[in-house]
């Protein structure tokens, strides 16, 4: 029952698609700029996405799927760049809908393509014109502050057509590899409840045109291999371990030997976790591995550097007034660079050439020698940062806002990891602690930046060790790393020579976008951990039906 037929590619050429988009765009601009509420900006972005997935469970093929979809997003602005339908007025109800006018679209016939562009533009104009009319009325009632930032920054046109990338794999070969990997989980039926592996691939061709004259076609590929095992410890707590590898091309994924080793590793880690003791709430020194530190910086620093938040009255605006002030140790530099698609052996998923507002991507130095230098900007300007720096990003169907790309933490003064562990123990001794903590791996995290709630972060570790004063390490479980940003930054004391990469997806107002975080391991003088939310269930009433000997391994 396995599926193997290939999906056909778009029938129209890149130039035919861009030409049809431009034709319809020009036709709309000509008429809609003449309306009572005139259009001042229009862009079309079409995403043609193909996804394939293979999955395996305990050595057997479990799932196979392929799908392809093309969608259109229309960004249409009524008014002028100073004041348009996206304006944020004080004391008024604001249009907070994060979704844009979006529609499925066919790239196989010009008729279907243009008909959809036309219908979506009409819907977008009518909706945004009405919003703008309401905002004008509100603006008359609430005189607009003269210091209010403009709503939109104009830009110069960009042109680029990237070659088509192909999503292609040898299905039987990869299914066999996935089966071999998931077969590793088969020999502990009483402890391992589910053991699966998957390979997903996605290719996105995006076509962008706007009323400034930009015309861009990009092609992105992403492959991800995932491994996951789950079980339940004696207390009934559900536990899992997983590993993920992402790349831009298939040949840059780990080889079979490395994947099998990874499967063995997460299996052993799960089995150890099932026996691991619970750690109690703790404050004291800790090392965050490169991956953990990457997520730590993404959550506590990165989200607070996203420029659009600093326009919102509801946001805590932690760093808005701290430009040119020291926020990290002087040895720390943090930059965001979507132009780098690889670091050493690892591909970076936060790479792109143009953002979703037609702006060329560029490196943004956020922290230089510990001093805050700038923010991540979309085309929603700030007084001191009036232009986009190519970080207006979104998931198809959403409105773009400033988002992170590849976050890179670069520290000028580093020590080997072994020395970092020594420094940890030294710090623990000085604080009178019996141990320090090592956060070796994490699954993700989240943060709150609004004023209405504590401005805290939560990083969710999966592998945590207690390192006792004699250097012995003990795997523990059941805690999250929590804190507040400015305090956490002030406690960073050292970084390792080794760096690591966390590739993942970041979810925020403009949907889910791929990001990377690159960081050395860091030593933090004092962190706080709290108990994880309980997920205890009841243990199975009956033992596993088959013993290890019954399984064909």
């Amino acid at each position: 029952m396995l599926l193997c037929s290939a999906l056909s590619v778009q029938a129209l050429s890149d130039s035919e698609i861009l030409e049809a988009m431009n034709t319809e765009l020009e036709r709309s601009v000509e008429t809609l700029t003449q309306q009572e509420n005139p259009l001042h900006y229009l862009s079309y972005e079409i995403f043609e996405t193909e996804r394939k997935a293979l999955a395996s469970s305990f050595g057997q093929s479990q799932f196979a799927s392929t799908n392809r979809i093309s969608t259109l997003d229309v960004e249409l602005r009524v008014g002028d760049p100073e004041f348009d339908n996206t304006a944020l007025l004080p004391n008024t109800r604001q249009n907070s809908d994060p979704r844009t006018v979006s529609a499925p679209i066919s790239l196989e016939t010009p008729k279907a393509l243009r008909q959809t562009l036309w219908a979506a533009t009409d819907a977008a104009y009518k909706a945004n014109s009405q919003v703008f009319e309401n905002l004008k009325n509100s603006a008359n009632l609430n005189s607009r502050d003269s210091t209010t930032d403009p709503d939109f920054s104009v830009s110069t046109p960009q042109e680029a057509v990237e070659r088509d990338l192909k999503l292609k794999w040898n299905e039987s070969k990869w299914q066999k590899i996935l089966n071999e990997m998931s077969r590793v989980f088969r020999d502990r039926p009483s402890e391992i409840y589910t053991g699966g592996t998957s390979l997903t691939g996605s290719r996105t061709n995006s076509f962008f045109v706007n009323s400034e004259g930009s015309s861009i076609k990009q092609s992105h590929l992403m492959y991800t291999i995932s491994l996951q095992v789950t079980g339940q410890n004696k207390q009934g707590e559900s536990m899992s371990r997983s590993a993920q590898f992402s790349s831009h091309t298939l040949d840059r994924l780990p080889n079979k030997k490395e994947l099998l080793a990874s499967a063995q590793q997460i299996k052993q880690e799960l089995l150890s976790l099932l026996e691991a003791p619970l750690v109690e709430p703790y404050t004291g020194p800790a090392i965050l591995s490169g991956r953990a530190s990457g997520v730590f910086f993404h959550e506590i620093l990165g989200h607070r550097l996203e420029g659009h938040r600093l326009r919102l009255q509801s946001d805590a605006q932690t760093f808005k007034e701290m430009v040119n002030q020291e926020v990290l140790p002087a040895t720390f530099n943090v930059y965001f660079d979507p132009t780098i698609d690889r670091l050493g052996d690892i591909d970076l998923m936060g790479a792109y050439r143009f953002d979703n507002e037609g702006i060329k991507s560029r490196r943004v130095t956020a922290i230089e020698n510990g001093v805050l230098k700038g923010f991540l900007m979309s085309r929603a300007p700030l007084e001191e940062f009036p232009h986009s720096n190519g970080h207006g990003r979104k998931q198809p169907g959403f409105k773009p806002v400033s988002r992170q790309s590849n976050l890179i933490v670069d520290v000028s003064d580093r020590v080997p990891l072994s020395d970092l562990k020594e420094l940890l123990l030294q710090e623990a001794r000085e604080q009178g602690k019996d141990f320090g903590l090592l956060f070796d791996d994490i699954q993700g995290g989240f943060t709150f930046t609004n004023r209405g709630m504590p401005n805290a972060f939560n990083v969710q570790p999966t592998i945590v060790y207690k390192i006792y004063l004699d250097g012995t390490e003990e795997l523990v479980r059941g805690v999250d790393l929590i804190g507040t940003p400015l305090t956490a930054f002030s406690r960073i004391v050292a970084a390792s020579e080794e760096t690591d990469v966390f590739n993942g997806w970041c979810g925020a107002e403009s949907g889910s976008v791929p990001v990377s975080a690159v960081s050395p391991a860091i030593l933090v003088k004092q962190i706080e951990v709290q108990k994880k939310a309980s997920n205890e269930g009841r243990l199975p009433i009956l033992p596993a039906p088959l013993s290890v000997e019954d399984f064909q391994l």
Partner: protein
Amino acid sequence: MKFATMMKPLSFLLFFVASYTAIASEQIVFQAMGDSLERSMKMLTGQDSTAPYFISYTLHQDEQIQMNSMLGGIRSESQVASNTLEVQVRVGSYELDNTNFLVNRRSNNFPLTTPDVPLEFDYEILRHHLWLLTDSAYKNAVEIYGEKTTALDNNSVDYEVADFSRQEPVTFRDNRRHGKLDRDAIAKRVNDISSVLSDYPEILNSNTAITVDIHQDYYLDSEGTSFTRVDDIAELTVVISTQAENGAPLLDTVSDVVRRSDQFQDVETFKDEVRSVAETIAAMRSANELENYNGPVLFVEGAAIELAAHFLGSAFIAQKDAIRKLSNNQIRVASIPNNPFQTKIGARVLPREFTVYNDSLLESYNGVPLHGTIPIDAEGVLATRTNLIERGILRGLLTSRQPVEGIDQSTGNRLAGRGPVPTNLIIETNRGFSNEEMLEEFQLLVSDRGLEYGILAKRAVRGVGVIGSQPKSMMINEVYKVYPDGTQELMQQGRVSQFVLSNFKDIIAASERVNVKTHMGRYAVGSPPSTATNIMSVATPDLLFEEITLTPAQTVRAKPPILPSPMEEG
């Protein structure tokens, strides 16, 4: 000649290998299910808490292609193959068990499912998943059962109808052949059909969707029932929409629903039907708006079918009242499945000329294939014919293994979702009028009422059949005013409103012409209600009612497009 001679044994060998593989797979599934069932029934009975009295396993094997096309080009497509395991565990007894009980509006996780099952059947892995799923389902059942018995003990509620009916064990293997998934042929068909609408610039939006689903169920329960069931569905739907000159939205749907894609009607015939609907809807743009109307309505063709399927079809769905525990620990009987027909068995519900039955085994009617046909339902009850209305008197209802007052056995109609649904619903009259006689009768009614015109409803949109006594409404996609001189005037779309089941008693006449159509039936069944979708066929004559209320379909008047469409510009 040599070539042909060599091919024969090879073809035979391939057939043999394929058949052998299927049989081997089936054996693995039933072996794993059987061993798990035996162990679970035996070992869970030995536990301190309540023992299971019934366990069933269903393995759903599914392979599906879906595509959406507009004006000759694919907009999206997906292909997926997956297996899902479903486990039911009942504790207590047939009379009182863990089902049919809700805490507030929360579903009670019955049955439990997992999608983790491999595509290739593997005895050990199936046993592993069956173990974990049975364990979860059992613990859940014990918890719900405890809560239910405590709630019933502490509240005064009549609980006389059993929760589950007993069933003689059945062994059945469905030998019907599966359809094929030919991606390129499916794409060609959907694009070919959607391209028809390129000739209609007045149509502002359209979508042609196709789904071809190859589905097989493997079932085993602790009563000894074991079956396999082929449940393929192929569905083609064209949605056409535009805007009238006065801004009213206009919409219609053309569909072809069959079991296998080789049963779809001829492409050219279907395209003609799409063209016909497109032309009608294009003409409707400049048609007059329907005023509020109360008087005789003649339902013909698609409108008669939808009326029968959704208003009458839903009235035959019998469900037991659910017990709901409220946050203050009191319980009450949920009113959702309160089907007025459940208290009317033996009473007149239609004129005496009418007979209505559901026949799951019927394969064609008046020479037209019926695709709602099934040999066995999802609970292992062999399909049968159920007489619902005889000479206008309600004689029966459609049930699952959840008995209702007065009907303690299943009619074999539990297919999808949580309740019974119609399969092949046949409405017959012993006094069918010719088309001319129908129109004459219609005109007579109009004249008797002193009305300027009567209403003829020709096409209706698919809707969800809602069970209950509340007045219902239904969109009429193609509606005409019929004047005394016989002139018919196409109107903008309308809506039947305030329709109640007792309206059926007032059918004045039915045609000798029979309309037969297979479509996807959608019924809100269960408590809390969820939409159950199943393939069903309906055969009904045209129906003339003396008094029906119609209103304009839409009161929204959107502005017309600012720019002409690119198709209009040419």
